């Protein structure tokens, strides 16, 4: 019985340790001023910030996993595998930060700040070149 209780206690302390280290890591993420702030942080009003934070959270938590495929095509990596593996890590960061920002969207505090998050540059419409010629 005593052994069982000590085992439970040790499990609780391990969980607490993991949670504390995760919190410390999140604090580290937000405390460094060198990071690029989340895109919604520049909004002036409370409604703009919370809407932006909600959008950022939804986009990154739902589609953050796409980053691994995007990163594999990045020319800064020597091979696609290197980009893909770094993309897995970046996807985890984006999805984690997206979930936290989604859960805390009414509080307009940029935490955790991992930069711009998932971003796809806007592509021009398919008949864009034809329209340009006509003009």
């Amino acid at each position, binding site marked *: 019985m005593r052994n069982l209780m000590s085992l439970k206690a040790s499990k609780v302390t391990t969980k607490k340790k993991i949670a504390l280290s995760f919190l410390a*890591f999140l604090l*580290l993420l937000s405390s460094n001023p060198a990071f690029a702030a989340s895109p919604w942080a520049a909004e002036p009003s409370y409604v703009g910030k919370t809407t932006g934070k909600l959008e950022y959270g939804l986009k990154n938590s739902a589609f953050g996993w796409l980053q691994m495929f995007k990163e594999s095509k990045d020319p800064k990596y020597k091979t696609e595998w*290197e980009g893909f*593996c770094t993309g897995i890590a970046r996807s985890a*960061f984006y999805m984690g930060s997206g979930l936290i920002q989604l859960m805390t969207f009414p509080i307009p505090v940029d935490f955790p700040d991992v930069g711009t998050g998932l971003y796809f540059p806007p592509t021009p419409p398919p008949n864009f070149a034809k329209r340009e010629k006509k003009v």
Partner: protein
Amino acid sequence: MKSWKIQYTILILACTLFLNPSGFAAIENWQASPWTQEKTYVEKSIGKLGFGFLNFATGWSALLFEPARYSNKFTGILKGIWRTVTNEAGGLIHAATFPIPIDIPLPDGGVHFDEEPHVP
């Protein structure tokens, strides 16, 4: 008592390997990890985790690549086994310690799939 001796031996080996890497420079070609060139803490953490994934997931490929690089197959197979161990262990350490942006250099810079010159 026995476990204490084993722990002490591992500690001494680890200290010799990581605190005095110059002693091993003649045996292994230690190279800094590519993520160390990143500037921000987030980018370094992402790079370190990704580098860990890459080495842990594909470290075993040295078993195939190294014998092809050497004309002496026995040397190549032994090198492949050793590289597999270093890549897998290094990858695991990098992935497990990704929030701490301190580099642990790997022999030959870990896994890389670009072409290498043939070793006689």
